[in-house]
């Protein structure tokens, strides 16, 4: 198993892919969505959000496009690539297995 930071990092990547998969969003919107969805459990500062997005982009999993935002500002919108979609499916399945296993272990009653 990987180190805890890797787990969090991997989880963040998965969350970002999932968020972008629903609709193309800009960085600010992604940040807002992340906070809405996870509350304060995942404390992701904007300072680490952008490097994570850029890493996904450089890995070819998401792509970016400059568009006008709702309030008529030019903003960079991220969307999933074909490669990213496949990655998301695989990672979602992995996550399902992993979290299922973990919750089963955690729920074990002491004999």
């Amino acid at each position, binding site marked *: 198993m990987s180190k805890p930071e890797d787990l969090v990092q991997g989880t963040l990547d998965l969350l970002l892919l999932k968020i972008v998969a629903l609709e193309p969003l800009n960085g600010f919107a992604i940040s807002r969505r992340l906070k809405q969805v996870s509350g304060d459990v995942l404390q992701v500062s904007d300072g*680490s959000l952008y490097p994570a997005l*850029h890493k996904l982009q450089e890995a070819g999993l998401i792509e970016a496009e400059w568009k006008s935002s709702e309030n008529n500002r030019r*903003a960079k919108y991220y969307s999933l690539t074909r490669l990213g979609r496949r990655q998301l499916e695989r990672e979602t399945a992995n996550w399902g297995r992993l979290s299922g296993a973990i919750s089963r272990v955690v729920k074990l009653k002491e004999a």
Partner: protein
Amino acid sequence: MLKGKSIPPERWLYTAPLRLRALFRRRQLDQDLDEELRSHLEEQTQGYIELGLSAEDAHYAALRDFGNLELAKQNCRDARRVLWVQNLIEDLHFGLRTLRKAPAFTAVAMLTLALGIGANTAIFSVINTVLLRPLPYAQPERLVFLSESAPDIPVMFLSLANFADWQSMNTVFENMGGYRRVSATLAGQGSEPQRLVLGQVTSGLFPTLGVEPVLGHAFTPEEDKPDTAPVVLLSDTLWARQFGRDPNVLGKQLRLDGTWYTVTGVIRNDLLPLYWRQIDAFTSLGRLENAIGGEAHRTHHLGVYAYARLKPGITLEQARADMLSISQRLAQRHPQTNAGQGAVVQPLLQKVVGEVSRPLAMLMGAVALVLLIACANVASLLISRAIVRRREIAIRSALGAGTARLVGQLLCESTLLALAGGALGLLAAYCVTPVLARRAIAIVPRIEDISIDRSVLIFTFAVSLAIGIVFGVVPALAIYRRNPTEAFQETGGAPRSGFLPTCLRSMLATAELAMALVLLVGAGLTIKSLFLVLQTDSGMQTNGVLTGVLNLPGTKYKTHAEVDSFMRRLMQKIAPLPGVTAAGFETPQLIGGSQGTFRVEGRPQPQQGRETYAEFSSLTPGTLEALGVKLFAGRFFQWKDDAEAPRVCIIDDALAEQYWPGENAIGKRIATEVPVTPTWWRVAGVVHHLTTDGAAPHQLVEIFFPYSQFPDGHGRLIIQSQQGRASPLPEVIQVIHSLDPDLPLYDVRTLSDLMEDNVATRRLLVVLLSVFAALALLLAMPGVYGVIAYMVTARTREIGVRLALGAKRRDILRLVLAQLLPVIVGGAGLGILACLALRRSLGILLFHVSAADPWTIAGSASLLIAVALAACWIPLRKAMTIDPVRVLHRE
């Protein structure tokens, strides 16, 4: 989780353009990044303003939320994963800039490396051409060279009868071909007669090499038989010269030595082994079966060697074992002729280049040393620079440059330097190799094909790169310290020298001196050896002696009597010519050329396989006189020693000394197996031993016969001309043509030129080694100079203070010498040790001188020390003339 294994390989399709974009549209991406983050902050700020904050407060709140903006930007840029490329490019730029800013340093370092790398490239390209490239035949590794051996003769010609037996008895060769080189006269068809070099070969030879004629067909096994019609294959040079490349040349007739031959094919001679390239035409060796083959001639080893091709999968050892068993069976079957004789199987490449591989290896070692010295020099220079730049480096380190990045920068700089030096060196080698090849063409096989090919380029590039990397690390080590603040604490002026760099530089200088000494000793030994070889008494007076080859064709001069009578008439006409003081004819070559067994009357017959051998030659009267040979006892030959007269011989002092020490050898009798077994000769004279090669390892004793009693049509005319007169050569040629208009005199050379051939290899080796030794000495000087100059500069203040406090100049001298002497003495000592360790491999190439020759070593060491001291003269003077007042004033 996103990392690694699960990502499909076609990922590259997506990411490669991204990497390229990251590299080439960096500014665009950085702008995008700024804009993206700014827009984020603006939206956030807008959000806070809507919540009721003032614009300024909202802005700061947004910034606080975001965290470290610059760090985020840096991390985003790092996400592009091309940082190292960018760093590399930056470092290269930086390296180029710093090198440009120090032109003197750059020029010296580059030239030093160029010398070292250039010399290595040149010698490597020779080795690559001569030793490493495969022979130009199909599967050349299966080709072997066959010869015979006898107890005292490691390699000798084959007898044709043995060759035929080997061919039928062996189980290891796919093909086998015998050959020998002779010369023949091509009768002039309306023009002057020409002397041709003729290759006599068996039908198996061309198939063995895998060489096909460009026209017609090679010899068939039928054409190997004695009584078939004579046929000839032309070389393409003769084809061009004689027939203007006429495609209809097949079937035409050619008269060689009076016999008509039919042209059946044309062979490209550039495909043949080097020493065959002068061959003009090929005829069948098998046709001579009756003359030189068969049982009657089993003892005759007449210039024939053979090539063979191993069957696929057969190793050299298997072939040797098979040939050994064949030799043993032949020895049982023919005990009279074959006892003790063996077969020698050598890889063809080894045979072709065998003699030069050792000298070449030695030269490669020499240039490697030169390169090491050059590298040590450059490393030393880089260390000085690194020390000077310590403060700059400390500042950069304090500003956050990591150790890896700093070392990377130094590496970039040294690699740039080394590659530039390599490129210059390559250019130098490109200019030098043709010159080298021209000088060596007669003595180094295959060198005419020399070129700077891909292997050479790879070699040079790899060497340069390795130098750049290794010698970039050295200065990095020298400046390495954990605490950069130390560098700031240094006062102005020359930086204090740390222990490590000074020590490193002294060690480098010591190593340079040691390596230079090895080269000096190597060159000194070969020079001394050459000198002694040249000093060897050849037994001849070479001044004013002209020689040329005559070849009386056997078809025209059929009997010994005819040959003898021609030579008698020729000599009687040449001797009285104006300017000729003495003249003679010697066969088969100058000094011997044929070896045979002999025994001495009154001594027990030597056992089978333990026969004694001598060099045989037949001479007309006047030959020994023309060569200026010293007569110790008895007399020279006279024309009265003719075929009817009692057989007499002249022996050399070595033979006389061996059998009749302190006795008179005149009148004693010697038996030989030629012309018939046994032939008894009475010793009529004893002369000085003759030698054409002072370095020949073991020399046979010599027996000379009167020409008339053992004549042969092929040999060398020897004419001693009077000093200070025009050469009598034109008259001599006129006389020859007056007797036989079809007889060319060829290979006309002075006796000194002829002898020079034998020392040419050694002379070239001496020239090259001397050049490399001089180069080494030249390159080692700045190394020593640098150590002392640096020490004096670094300690100027200290010396000034010492002087002010009352130290004498003598004490200062002692101070400098304390640093200088260990380097020089250590270098010389290490060098001497290295020479002694290397003496075995050095000794192989030396004659008449030991590899541990104390005079040479002492002389070389003295030269080295003198040069090293001279190199230190300027800094030493500077140290001695330091003015304490001025030094203290400057403080």
